[in-house]
C-alpha cells in the first residue's frame, strides 16, 4: 500500500501537500495502476443508436480475436440480485441496469464488455462487437422538448406573487447553459477482484469508498464488510465520482464471470457518456425591486436535461431562496427527459446554474435602475436563513463584497457599458456572488502512534485533490503538538473509520472534527499511560501536549520510549467519530463568495479575455491556506469554462456527442486563465464544528459565470443570456 509521504524521508516533509512528493514522483497509485496478479482487461462497448432495442448481439468475430476470454452483455451475464428483481425504469435507483436490459436509452449506452488477456486484445475485440437493433427515433433536442414540459411547484414558496405585482422596476428574462462535462484528468477505472467467501476487493476511482461499498453490497447482496474499497489517490472528481457507474458494476460482474480480477478503465470519449455531466438548462427569472434597489419578489423557473433511465433534477432554484432576503419567492422546476446519458452533480450542482440566472438578472435590474450592483447586493443579503427562519451562524457575504470591490478597484469602474478601452480592447468589470449551504456529516478518524512517536491519521474519506490529507495533518499537528514531519496520513480506504463521500463541500468541515476528536483522545490516552496515578479524563486537555519526543503535562515530561516500555506497548490507538448536533437546530450555515472580474473584448474579433479575477470567499477558518486557495483557483478556472468555453454538443439526429474528447471539448487551459487573486475572510464559524471551518469546494465556482457575463455587458453593452459565451453567442447577442 502506498502512503501520503515517503516514510523514509520524514525529515524532508513537503511544505505543500502531504501527498505532493508521491504525486510528482509517480509513486502515487491511481486505481488503474495497481498491479494485480492474473488480472484481465475489460473494455466497455457502447450502443450505436440512441433509442430502441437490441435484437441480437453479434460477437462471433470478436470472440475469435486473440486473447479474448469472454464477452458480457444482456445475453451473457452473471446473476445480480439487485438487477434481477428490477422494476421498470426510470425508478431503478442504481441507474442503468447494465446487461439486464435489451433496451437502449441513449447513444453509447454500455451494452457489452469484452474481457481479454491484455488491454490491446480487449480494445481490438471491442471494436469488433456489433449489435442488431430495432431502432426508434430518439428525443435529443433539449430546447425543443423543454417547451413541451410543464413546470412544477418546488413547494418552497414564500409570500405571494401578487404582493409585488406592481413593483416599479422589473426584469423578466430567460437564460440557458450548455451541457458541461466534468472531465477530471484521471479516467474512471475499477479493478474488481473476488476473494474466497464472497469477499470483494475494489480499486476504484470514486469520491466515497463507503458509498461504493453500500451500493455494491445491495446490488450483489453481500455484506458491506465483505467489500474492501481502495481509492487512495483520486485524480479529480468534481462530482463524477459520487455515484457508482455502470463500468464499476460491470467490472464486478465480469470478475465473477471469468473468475479472475478484471481491470476496466474508461476511454476519454467514454468519460463523456458514462460518468455524468452538468445538464443543459433553461431558466426564467423575474425580479422586482423598488426604486432604491430593495428586492420585492422573485419568480425563478428552471428546467434541466434528464435521462430516460432515471429522473435527475439539478435543484436550480434552491440558491434563489437562499442568498437574498426575498419576502416573496416563487420557484418552479421541471426535468426534461431525453435519449441522452445520465447527468449528475457537477461542482456546485444546481446553485452554479441557478446563480447564472439570478445574478445576471440582478445585473440587468441594476443597469435599469442605474444603481451600483455591489450596493444593491449589500442591501439585499438574506438577514437570516430564509427557508428555516434560523439566524445565520456566520455569513460574511457582505465582507466578501466589500473586500472584493476594494481589491479590483471597483470604484473606478464606469457603469456605462462600452465606455472603457485599452488598445484594441473594450474593457469591463462584473460582479456576482455565490452561496452554498455548509453541511457536515458523521465522520470517523483514527490515530495510531508508534514507539518512535510517529502517528498515522486515518479516515475512509477520499482526497480528490481537495487537500483533505493536508488539512488532516494540519489539524492533528495543531491539536496534539506533534510536528508535521511525524504525522502520516492514510485515507480513501474502507478499512479505515467510516466517512461520507468527498462532495458537497462537506469534506473538510466533517473530517476536521473527527481528527480533532481523535487528537484529543490520543492526548488523553498517552497521558493515561504516562501517569497512571492521575485520572487522564479529568486533566485539563490544554495542559497536555505531545511532541516528537514525548508528552508534557504542566512541568512533567515523559519520553515515548519510557511510556511504551513501561506499559509494554507496541502502539497506541484511538478512534473517534464526530458529526453535527443540536447546533443545526439553532443556526443556518453557509459559505459564500464574491467574484469581481475584469474582461477585455476585442473590438473586431469579439475575442473575450479574462484579464483579472478577484475571488473573496467566506469559508470560516481556513485550515490550510494553500490548499484552500488551490480549491478556489480551480473553481475559478472551471468558471471560465462555464462562462466562456465548455459546451458539449450533440448531433440531434443520432444522439451522438460531437467532439467528445479533449481536443473537441474546450475547458480552460492556462493561456485562458489570468492570475486568480484569491482571498478569504478567514473568520472561524464558532458553531459549525470545533475547527470553525465551513465548506469551500463549491462556492468558488458559484457566481463565476455570471460575473463574466456581467463584465462582458459592462465592456460591450451586449447582454449574453446563453452560456458559454462562444463567439457565435457573442455575435448574436
Amino acid at each position, binding site marked *: 500500500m502506498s502512503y501520503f509521504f515517503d516514510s523514509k524521508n520524514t525529515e524532508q516533509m513537503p511544505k505543500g501537500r502531504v501527498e505532493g512528493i508521491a504525486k510528482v514522483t509517480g509513486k502515487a497509485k491511481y486505481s488503474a495502476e495497481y498491479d494485480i496478479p492474473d488480472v484481465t482487461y475489460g473494455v466497455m462497448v457502447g450502443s*450505436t443508436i440512441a433509442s430502441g432495442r437490441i435484437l441480437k448481439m453479434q460477437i462471433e468475430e470478436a470472440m475469435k480475436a*486473440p486473447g479474448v476470454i469472454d464477452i458480457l452483455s444482456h445475453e451473457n451475464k452473471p446473476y445480480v440480485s439487485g438487477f434481477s428483481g428490477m422494476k421498470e425504469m426510470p425508478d431503478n435507483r442504481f441507474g442503468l441496469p447494465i446487461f439486464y436490459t435489451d433496451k437502449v436509452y441513449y*447513444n453509447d449506452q454500455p451494452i457489452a464488455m469484452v474481457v481479454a488477456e491484455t488491454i*490491446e486484445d480487449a*480494445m*481490438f475485440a471491442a*471494436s469488433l462487437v456489433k449489435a442488431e437493433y430495432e431502432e426508434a427515433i430518439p428525443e435529443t433536442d433539449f430546447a425543443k422538448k423543454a417547451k413541451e414540459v410543464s413546470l412544477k411547484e418546488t413547494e418552497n414558496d414564500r409570500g405571494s406573487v401578487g404582493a409585488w405585482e406592481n413593483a416599479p422596476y422589473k426584469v423578466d428574462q430567460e437564460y440557458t447553459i450548455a451541457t458541461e462535462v466534468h472531465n477530471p484528468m484521471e479516467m474512471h477505472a475499477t479493478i474488481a477482484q473476488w476473494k474466497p467467501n464472497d469477499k470483494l476487493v475494489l480499486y476504484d476511482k470514486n469520491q466515497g469508498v463507503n458509498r461504493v461499498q453500500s451500493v455494491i453490497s445491495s446490488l450483489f447482496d453481500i455484506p458491506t464488510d465483505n467489500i474492501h474499497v481502495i481509492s487512495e489517490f483520486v485524480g479529480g472528481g468534481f462530482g463524477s465520482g459520487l455515484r457508482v457507474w455502470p463500468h464499476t458494476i460491470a467490472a464486478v460482474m465480469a470478475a465473477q464471470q471469468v473468475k479472475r480480477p478484471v481491470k476496466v478503465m474508461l476511454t476519454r470519449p467514454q468519460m463523456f457518456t458514462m460518468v455524468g455531466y452538468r445538464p443543459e438548462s433553461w431558466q426564467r427569472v423575474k425580479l422586482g425591486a423598488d426604486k432604491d434597489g430593495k428586492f420585492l419578489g422573485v419568480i425563478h423557473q428552471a428546467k434541466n436535461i434528464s435521462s430516460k433511465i432515471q429522473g435527475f433534477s439539478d435543484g436550480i432554484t434552491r440558491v434563489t431562496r437562499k442568498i437574498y432576503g426575498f419576502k416573496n419567492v416563487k420557484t418552479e422546476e421541471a426535468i426534461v427527459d431525453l435519449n441522452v446519458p445520465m447527468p449528475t452533480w457537477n461542482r456546485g450542482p444546481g446553485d452554479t446554474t441557478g446563480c447564472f440566472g439570478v445574478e445576471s438578472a440582478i445585473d440587468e435590474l441594476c443597469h435599469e435602475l442605474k444603481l451600483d450592483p455591489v450596493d444593491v447586493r449589500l442591501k439585499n443579503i438574506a438577514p437570516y436563513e430564509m427557508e428555516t427562519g434560523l439566524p445565520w451562524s456566520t455569513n460574511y457575504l457582505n465582507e466578501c463584497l466589500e473586500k472584493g470591490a476594494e481589491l479590483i478597484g471597483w470604484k473606478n469602474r464606469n457603469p456605462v457599458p462600452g465606455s472603457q478601452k485599452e488598445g*484594441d480592447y473594450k474593457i469591463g468589470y462584473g460582479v456576482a456572488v455565490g452561496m452554498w449551504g455548509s453541511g457536515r456529516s458523521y465522520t470517523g478518524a483514527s490515530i495510531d502512534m508508534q514507539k518512535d512517536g510517529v502517528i498515522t491519521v486515518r479516515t475512509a474519506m477520499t482526497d480528490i485533490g481537495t487537500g483533505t490529507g493536508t488539512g488532516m495533518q494540519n489539524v492533528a499537528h495543531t491539536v496534539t503538538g506533534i510536528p508535521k514531519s511525524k504525522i502520516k496520513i492514510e485515507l480513501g480506504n474502507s478499512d479505515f473509520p467510516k466517512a461520507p463521500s468527498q462532495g458537497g463541500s462537506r469534506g473538510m468541515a466533517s473530517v476536521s472534527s473527527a481528527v480533532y476528536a481523535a487528537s484529543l483522545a490520543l492526548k488523553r490516552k498517552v497521558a493515561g499511560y504516562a501517569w497512571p496515578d492521575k485520572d487522564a479524563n479529568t486533566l485539563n486537555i490544554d495542559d497536555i501536549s505531545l511532541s516528537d519526543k514525548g508528552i508534557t503535562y504542566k512541568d512533567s515530561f515523559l519520553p515515548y520510549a519510557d511510556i511504551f516500555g513501561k506499559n509494554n506497548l507496541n502502539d497506541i490507538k484511538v478512534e473517534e467519530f464526530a458529526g453535527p448536533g443540536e447546533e443545526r437546530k439553532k443556526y443556518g450555515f453557509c459559505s459564500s463568495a464574491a467574484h469581481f472580474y475584469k474582461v477585455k473584448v*476585442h473590438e*473586431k*474579433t*469579439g*475575442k473575450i*479575455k479574462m484579464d483579472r479575477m478577484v475571488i473573496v470567499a467566506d469559508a470560516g477558518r481556513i485550515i490550510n491556506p494553500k490548499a484552500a486557495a488551490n480549491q478556489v483557483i480551480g473553481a475559478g478556472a472551471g468558471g471560465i469554462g462555464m462562462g466562456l*468555453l465548455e459546451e458539449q*454538443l*450533440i*448531433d*440531434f*439526429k*443520432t444522439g*451522438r456527442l*460531437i*467532439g467528445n474528447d479533449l*481536443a*473537441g471539448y*474546450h475547458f*480552460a*487551459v*492556462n*493561456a*485562458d486563465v489570468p492570475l486568480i487573486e484569491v482571498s478569504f475572510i478567514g473568520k472561524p464559524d464558532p458553531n459549525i464544528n470545533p475547527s470553525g471551518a465551513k465548506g469551500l469546494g463549491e462556492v468558488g465556482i458559484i457566481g463565476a459565470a455570471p460575473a463574466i457575463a456581467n463584465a462582458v455587458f459592462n465592456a460591450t453593452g451586449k447582454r449574453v443570456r446563453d452560456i458559454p459565451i*462562444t*463567439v*457565435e453567442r457573442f*455575435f*448574436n447577442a
Partner: protein
Amino acid sequence: MKPFEYTKPKTVREALSSATRHSHYIAGGTNLVDLMKKEIDEPDKLLDITNTLPDQIEVKDNGVVIGAMVRNTAIAVNKIILESWPLLSKAILKGASPQIRNMASAGGNLLQRTRCPYFYDLTLPCNKRKNGSGCGALKGNNRMGAIIGYSDACVAVHPSDMCVALAALDAKVNIQKADGSEETMNFLDFHRLPGTNPEKDNNLPENALITSIFVPKNNFSKHFEYLKLRDRESYAFALVSVAAALDMDGNQISEARLASGGVAHKPWRWTKAEDFLKGKQATAENFAEAARIAAEDTAPLSTNAFKVPLLKGAIETALHTCLTNKA
C-alpha cells in the same frame, strides 16, 4: 487498434518499394496513431520514415528547402526561417502543443486529416471516411465546418496552421512517386476541394513520399501576422485563421498575401482581396474593404454563420498587426 506490422526502411527507395495498398508511412505519428486508435485508418503495415527522409533546413535555389522529416518545432525556431520567413514560424507556434510540435514532421503536417467530428465518429455518416455514406455535418452540427469551396458531399476543413502560411508564401512540395520519379507541385495545387470524392484530401499520388518543401524568397519578412481565432487560447483548432503578409513601400502596399485556415477543405488564398490591396495605401478603410471582398465569396452552413464576421474581423486585425509586427 488492429494489429499491424512495423518496419523502418533505411532509404527512400526501400520505403517506396515496401509500400502496398494497405501500408502507411509513419512520421511523427501524432495524427496517424490517433486515427488507428479510432479505427478510422487500419493499415496492415507501418513504414517508419523517420530515418528515411531529410531533416535539414537549407537555403537553396533562391529560397529555403525544408526536409520532410524536420520536426515542426525545429522549423519554428530555425534562425533562417525566423529571419526570412517568420510568418511560417508564427503559424506553426499557434498549432497543437509543444509536445505535439516536437514530434510532428513537416511532411506529416501537410497530410494531417480533418478534425470534422463526423469524420471522427465511426457510427456517423461521413463521405470522407466512407464515400457514399453521406455527410452528417451538412445538416448536422457544422460550426467547425467550411464557409467556402465545400460541396454537398463534404463540408470539412483542413486543420493545419503551418499550411496556411505555406499557402500564403507560394511554397512548393517536392515528392517522389512509387516508381521513383520526382515531381514538384505548387502548394496551392497540393490540397484539393472535396467535390464528389472527399475521401481524397490532396493530389499526392498513391504511396508517393513528400521529400521536402520549398519556400521561395520574398519581401514579406517585415510585415506579417498569423492570427488564429479559436474557442480557447491554446490547444484548439482554428475557427478562422488568417495569414497576412505585406510588402510595403512607405505606406503603399506593393504586394499582399492573405490566406485562411478553418474556412475550407484546403488552406484558402484570398486572391481577389490581395489584388485589391496591391498598390493601395495601408489604411483602415482599405483593410476593411479587403476583408469585405474576401467575405463576399463565402456561404456559411447552418450553424457557422458567425465565421463570416469572424473572418472579416480577423483579416482587418491581421492586416493592422502587419504594420506593427515588425520582425
